[in-house]
């Protein structure tokens, strides 16, 4: 019985040296490759991985996402939005690298298990304060960050960052949240936020 790796190796070898294999072996390989996938199951999986709009770049999509997910105030707004936040453990980055996943189970537990040193992988900020997010971003893009209001660094956000994003792209994405305004002047980002009422969360 061959392991999947051995079969894969045989597949490539069969392409490189078909003369080494009998017609029957080649036929068997083709039959295997011709197998129809379960499209319904594949769609369900895809939908599960993309079931909410938080990752969408366009303005309307981001605003819709913001309405569902909301920004959670540190003061302890119940984390009702948790039901809407998809499970992201298997969110895939372009290079199939693991995404640092941050999770909280309620508003009191504000741990953010992010790896702030890893910058070459996509990174998911799941209910993480803006202050932490922008600390990473300022390190990565070599910019300073100035908050225009004192609440700003404490507002929490759900955001998927990818290393291929330019700073301008990140600003564009985050500016699509109605309650965040980011302006860049030289090498400094000026951030202003407005609080959202608890009922929106």
């Amino acid at each position, binding site marked *: 019985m061959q392991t999947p790796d051995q079969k894969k190796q045989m597949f490539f070898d069969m*392409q490189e040296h078909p003369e080494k294999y009998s017609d029957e072996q*080649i036929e068997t390989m083709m039959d295997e490759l011709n197998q129809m996938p379960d499209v319904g199951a*594949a769609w369900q999986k895809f939908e599960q991985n993309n079931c909410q709009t938080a990752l969408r770049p366009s303005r309307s999509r981001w605003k*819709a996402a913001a309405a569902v997910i909301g920004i959670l105030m540190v003061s302890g707004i119940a984390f009702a939005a948790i039901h809407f936040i998809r499970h992201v453990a298997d969110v895939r980055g*372009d290079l199939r690298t693991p995404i640092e996943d941050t999770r909280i189970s309620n508003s009191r537990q504000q741990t953010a298990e992010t790896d702030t040193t890893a910058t070459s992988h996509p990174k998911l900020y799941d209910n993480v304060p803006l202050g932490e997010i922008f600390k990473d971003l300022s390190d990565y893009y070599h910019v300073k960050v100035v908050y225009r209001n004192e609440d700003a660094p404490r507002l929490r956000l759900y955001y998927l960052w990818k290393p291929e994003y330019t700073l301008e792209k990140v600003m564009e994405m985050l500016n699509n949240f109605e309650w965040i305004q980011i302006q860049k002047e030289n090498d400094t980002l000026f951030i202003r936020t407005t609080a959202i009422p608890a009922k929106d969360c």
Partner: protein
Amino acid sequence: MGITVKDVMERIECQRLFMQHYAKMYRVARTILYDEQESEDVVSDIFEHLLYGETILMPDTEERYLLTSVRNQCFKRLRHVSNSLQGGDYAELADDSETDDERLTDIDEFVANHLSVQEQRIFRLRFTDGYSYEEIATAEDISRVAVWKHLSHALNIIRQHFKE
């Protein structure tokens, strides 16, 4: 505020494309990568791109676009794997995507210059039109094994081209 009608329509359209083309795309990916999970990933990545991106597909050419995307992504992936096996760095390779894209646009030209007329036809039937081995064998009036051999030869020299 909430999910807009536009969002719903985009999702419905994405579902239609997915249901209609997934099977063919997946089989094309498997022809190049073999690995089921990797093939699934390649196809899902393409749909994710469509869902989140601005690409609008024309009904007449959507299948070709999707299958060509699969083919290109698979070759790209193979190149990365090959490089990483030789000690390359994934992060470095990511920066190399422009070079990759240039190579990918050259594939058709490369195929035209390096494959026999019959192989070019078979290559396109499989990777642009999504024909099965069986369908190609019937169209070309050759055995399935002969189809495999022609495709293998084509894939080998394209892979070689990518390694260089």
